[in-house]
């Protein structure tokens, strides 16, 4: 069929602004809003449609680590110290402190923008998890009260409206492809970015004084399904780590890129769609779990003590101040472990009969309505495909129980070599301004190392946006290398005009198989090097053969080229760590020693003039959290509000 959109392949548009934001998800929208509030002219480039783009486009139900909300009994310092310790230090102290410290300010922002964050309609009046004065609804630990239950389906449209109200120039269907770098006077600094329109093929050169990277994290590295591409991974299929690939090419520093975890979600065969199965995690906490005969499975505290009442599922154990639960917490250490049911293997040994189910009929009515109706409903990907769909099929949470397909919140078992960047993976290294190692280039949200969750994306987005705006005020528009931009245009458009006949799916399949083979659960110098050799061959011999017929497929093709770059980055990072590590889920067969003291540090990695350079930073390079925060922000806190 004829292409229905304008054909602007070969045309170039040039724009300039003070602050350029790449990626219009949660972090990108807030970065744009914060910069615009400071008076900067802002351009936002979003590959999809800002109104509903990103992981939280269709919704989200938990706002975590809002340690300064009025109900919280945990300080930002305590909470950040706990999440750092839970990961043996392999976590992002700077960004999680910003999240804990400013997340609540962003909740109040959202309310001003027209998002819904409290139970204003009194649907849950009198519920155990509701604060009657503020009408906030809480989740998980009832004493800590750092996590709020929220109406996330309202968030992205509200953020988009606010961006437009503030005059942010949001360009949808525009995929950023590379960072512009200026080298004037021997100083390298960011000068904006290039992009391509995913409908028209028009090439864009966007010059900027400062740039904020908010393009989330890599995917489709080990997991790729050519038929059900969109279900290959947990996050939206267009989020494959373009920002990482761009940063890698521009010489930015990364850390923790050797970390990957056994796959947790891929509904293209193994898993079920998230939140659509019976479980007792996240959205479904604290559902009652029963076995095939309807026999109830007990919740246990961290010492194995059986909890008798529903109320106890929200209480820390005796002697424990608070427990950790939520997106960045998978298997918490004893110190932070909350109420949990035994895993299914253990239950079978104890005589329970499979399959297991979540049975909400046994919960108090307000809790049942909170899980099925509020959480399932407001959580991403649930309002239409779970709540409405299951209700249409006759599901009634008071009358039916929903089958469980795996322990914890996973609904599948994977092969050991099937891995994923899930939870708290590696990403861009940054300082206390959320600036990368390249002057003028900032980052936020899931693009940062060891980052996860919406409150984190919101808080770091706002923080990076305002620091980028401050820096933009102090600079002129940097020059950029026009020849470099022209080379990038040729690279980007090549698959549309190429004589080759390789499709992007075939290449992505090849990469995924290579990564499973050479960078699976057990890593070895020899196989990692073989992986690099094979991917190098793909880069030299196969990439030039890529061909596509329209700008949409061009976007997928460019994504796959970036998947290749990120895979190379992961292989290099895996070679750099010559020991194994528990917290990094990193098993080097040739270096089996686990977490030797000498290697208890962040290894950093970047590309410089075609060479890979590695370095190291102490795990506590973030320094004193409160003192450094104070040093990098206004004393009156006005900027954060």
């Amino acid at each position, binding site marked *: 069929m004829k292409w*229905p959109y304008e054909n602007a392949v070969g045309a170039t548009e040039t*724009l300039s602004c003070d602050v350029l934001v790449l990626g219009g998800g949660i972090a990108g929208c807030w970065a744009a809003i914060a910069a615009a509030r400071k008076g900067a002219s802002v351009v936002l480039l979003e590959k999809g449609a800002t109104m509903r783009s990103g992981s939280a486009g*269709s919704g989200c139900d938990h706002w975590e680590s809002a340690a300064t909300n009025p109900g919280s009994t945990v300080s930002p310092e305590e909470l950040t110290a706990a999440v750092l310790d839970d990961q043996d230090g392999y976590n992002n102290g700077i960004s999680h402190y910003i999240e804990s410290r400013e997340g609540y300010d962003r909740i109040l922002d959202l309310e001003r923008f027209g998002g819904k964050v409290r139970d204003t309609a009194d649907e849950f009046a009198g519920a155990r998890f509701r604060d009657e004065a503020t009408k906030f609804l809480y989740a998980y630990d009832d004493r800590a009260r750092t996590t709020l239950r929220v109406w996330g389906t309202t968030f992205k449209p509200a953020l988009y409206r606010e961006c437009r109200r503030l005059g942010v120039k949001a360009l949808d269907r525009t995929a950023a492809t590379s960072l512009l770098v200026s080298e004037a006077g021997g100083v390298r600094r960011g000068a904006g970015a290039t992009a391509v329109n995913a409908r028209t093929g028009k090439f864009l050169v966007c010059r900027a004084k400062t740039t904020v990277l908010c393009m989330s994290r890599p995917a489709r590295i080990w997991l790729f399904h050519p038929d059900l591409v969109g*279900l290959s991974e947990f996050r939206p299929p267009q989020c494959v780590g373009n920002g990482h690939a761009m940063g890698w090419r521009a010489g930015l520093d990364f850390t923790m890129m050797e970390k990957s975890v056994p796959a947790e979600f891929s509904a293209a065969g193994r898993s079920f769609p998230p939140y659509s199965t019976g479980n007792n995690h996240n959205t479904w906490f604290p559902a009652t779990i029963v076995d095939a005969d309807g026999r109830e499975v007990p919740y246990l505290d961290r010492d194995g003590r059986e909890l008798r009442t529903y109320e106890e599922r929200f209480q820390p154990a005796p002697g424990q101040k608070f427990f950790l639960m939520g997106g960045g917490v998978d298997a918490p250490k004893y110190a932070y472990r909350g109420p949990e049911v035994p895993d299914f293997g253990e239950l079978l040994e104890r005589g329970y009969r499979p*399959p297991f189910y979540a049975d909400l009929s046994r919960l108090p009515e307000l809790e049942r309505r909170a899980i099925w109706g509020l959480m399932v409903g407001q959580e991403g990907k649930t309002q*239409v495909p779970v709540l409405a769909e299951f209700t249409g099929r006759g599901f009634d949470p008071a009358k039916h*129980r929903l089958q469980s*397909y795996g322990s914890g919140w996973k609904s599948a078992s994977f092969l050991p070599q099937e891995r994923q960047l899930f939870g708290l993976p590696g990403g861009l290294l940054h300082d206390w301004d959320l600036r990368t190692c390249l002057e003028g280039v900032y980052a936020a949200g899931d693009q940062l190392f060891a980052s996860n969750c919406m409150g984190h994306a919101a808080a770091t987005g706002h923080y990076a946006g305002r620091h980028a705006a401050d820096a933009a005020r102090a600079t002129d528009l940097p020059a950029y290398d026009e020849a470099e931009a022209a080379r990038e245009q040729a690279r980007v458009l090549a698959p*549309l005009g190429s004589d080759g006949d390789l499709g992007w799916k075939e290449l992505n399949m090849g990469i995924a198989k290579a990564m499973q083979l050479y960078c699976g659960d057990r890593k070895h110098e020899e196989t990692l090097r073989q992986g690099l050799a094979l991917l190098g061959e793909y880069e030299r011999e196969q990439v030039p053969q890529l061909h596509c017929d329209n700008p949409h497929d061009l976007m997928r093709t460019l994504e796959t080229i970036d998947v290749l770059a990120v895979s190379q980055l992961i292989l290099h990072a895996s070679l750099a760590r010559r020991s194994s590590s528990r917290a990094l889920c990193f098993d080097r067969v040739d270096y089996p020693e686990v977490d030797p003291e000498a290697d208890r540090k962040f290894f950093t990695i970047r590309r410089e003039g075609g060479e890979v350079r590695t370095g190291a930073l102490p795990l506590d390079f973030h320094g004193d959290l409160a003192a450094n925060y104070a040093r990098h922000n206004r004393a009156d806190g006005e900027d954060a509000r």
Partner: protein
Amino acid sequence: MSGDVNRNGTDGATNGLRAEVVPCSARPIRFDPAKCNGCNRCLEACQVDVFLPNPEKGSPPLVVWPGECWYCGSCVQECPRPGAIALSHPLMNRTRFVPVGSSDSQD
């Protein structure tokens, strides 16, 4: 902000853009043409861009890349005409539920 468009570089060789529906084992999206007025709001809301506008004005968008669907439901959320568009999981992804009183051992 300032901007300008330079069309001088337009390359005649790449002008023949085209697309075909990419076959997929699943059918995520179904339209009810009696209810849909072809306003394309679903299409504009989709971050994955799985649709193309129907060349016939007033008709539902075409699902050109069904395999790329993320099953998020945003298209349905933004549709102003209830029932005009429906999303459903592939068969293998439809979770099972049973009445609470039942026992699998008596099935």
